[in-house]
């Protein structure tokens, strides 16, 4: 079971002579197998939080636990899948070769068959295609397949569909939920979209900026599997409003 526990975490970057505090006093737990959305104004440290979990750099203070161990051990035992905002594919490799990259680097057999993963993300028949021959949405599917190649226990996604159009994005989200359910991974999704956050997540974590802090944690108690008609539901709208209020605070209050 892979729970992510973040306690007392802060992160500062040195910037020239000074310092910039990206995150302060972060205290959250992502339950094993849950889907969490991180939302907040840009610059509030969402990407930094994901990078801390993925052991790109260590926290300045506090501790992070991924399953039974620290992020470094989790990373080195290939338990973490990461999806960036841009697909970050290697242009000289075809689709399957890109999906196989993590296994090659880890020098182990892929824990999931790259060809099957390609089919899972809806790219059957494009195994041999180069990234330059694919649309943006298709490239991002490859990136998701690659993140799943070693059957990660933790799936971190940094605005993965931010660059896609609304229609493609909605469709990709539905598929992502299906893939996540099937994989059993603990998922953390950074997003700018309130409705996306509510639609996808069990829990929406709202962050505020300067320095980045958790301003509110909203549990979304809506049935799964989530279907598009849920968006018409009054409960869905009330969750959206809760997130909106957490984000905009007093600006959202009805004037007296």
């Amino acid at each position: 079971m892979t729970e992510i526990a973040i306690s007392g975490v802060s992160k500062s970057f040195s910037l020239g002579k000074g310092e910039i505090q990206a995150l302060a006093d972060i205290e959250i737990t992502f339950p094993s197998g849950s889907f969490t959305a991180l939302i907040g104004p840009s610059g509030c440290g969402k990407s930094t939080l994901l990078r801390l979990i993925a052991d790109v750099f260590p926290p300045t203070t506090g501790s992070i636990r991924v399953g039974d161990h620290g992020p470094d051990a989790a990373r080195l035992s290939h338990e973490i899948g990461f999806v960036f905002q841009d697909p970050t594919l290697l242009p000289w490799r075809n689709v399957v070769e890109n999906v196989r990259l993590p296994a090659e680097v880890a020098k182990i057999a892929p824990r999931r068959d790259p060809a099957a993963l390609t089919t899972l993300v809806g790219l059957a028949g494009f195994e041999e295609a180069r990234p330059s021959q694919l649309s943006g949405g298709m490239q991002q599917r490859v990136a998701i397949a690659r993140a799943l190649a070693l059957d990660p226990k933790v799936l971190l996604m940094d605005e993965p569909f931010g660059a896609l159009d609304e229609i493609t994005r909605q469709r990709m989200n539905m598929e992502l939920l299906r893939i996540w359910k099937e994989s059993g991974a603990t998922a953390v999704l950074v997003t700018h979209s309130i409705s996306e956050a509510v639609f996808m997540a069990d829990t929406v974590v709202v962050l505020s900026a300067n320095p980045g802090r958790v301003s509110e944690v909203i549990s979304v108690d809506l049935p799964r599997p989530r279907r598009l008609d849920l968006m018409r539901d009054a409960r869905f709208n009330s969750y959206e409003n809760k997130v909106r209020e957490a984000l905009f605070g007093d600006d959202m209050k009805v004037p007296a």
Partner: protein
Amino acid sequence: MADTAPHQADKRPSRYAESQERLAALGRFARFVAVVLVVVVVLWQGAISLLDIEPFVAPDPLSVGQALVQETDALAVALAYTLRSTVGGVALALVLAVSIAGLFTLSPLLSRALLPLIIMLRTAPILAIAPLLILIFGRGQTTSIVVVVIVSFFPIMVNAARGFASPKANALELMHVCGASWWQTFTRVRVPFALPFIFTGIRMASAGAVLSAMLAEWLSGAPGIGTLILEASSFRKLPLMWAGVVVSMITATAIYGLTVWMERRLSR
């Protein structure tokens, strides 16, 4: 599942059409070279007749052509020597420059320590350090190669360093999250991204490489085309001297053309 259609991938011409096109391009190039040669020869002959230039100042094209034919063996031997220095020097410079640029990705501290030294070496006039090089490496091929290395190293290293730094942060982060070692990231991401840059460096270096090999021969007396030109000149064998000049110019142009071609193939 069809969110967006893929970009058309099958618009490429067939193998046959492609090779036909390449053949046609080669033909155009050959015609171009022939025209240039004819124009040069005509202008040359014209200038000598019109300005009444004496044969001991500049020979006419015909006697240079004769020298080319009569001295083919000597020219070929000298050219082979200079070519070995050129190719050997550029190859060695390539290995050194890519290795050092690669080391720079390992530590910015290293680059800050080494770069000033390299730039100093770069700015030292070859003419001034030549006696030292001859003292260390002798009057043979080694000195020629070392001179070519010194001249070629810098453009290759600068371009390789830029190339190694060219992958986006996300690509490097991806490798890190996958648990990649420095070496894995280097070979799988940095090197492929850097290849077009490295070829640009080779092209820039090769432009002056033949000339540097000849410069080394003028200073050391090693038996290449540079020395042939110098000796022909001091024995007043002007047609032979100009034959040497023509051969070295054609060689340098051909090498440059080859690297341009390689660079273009790679960056497609």
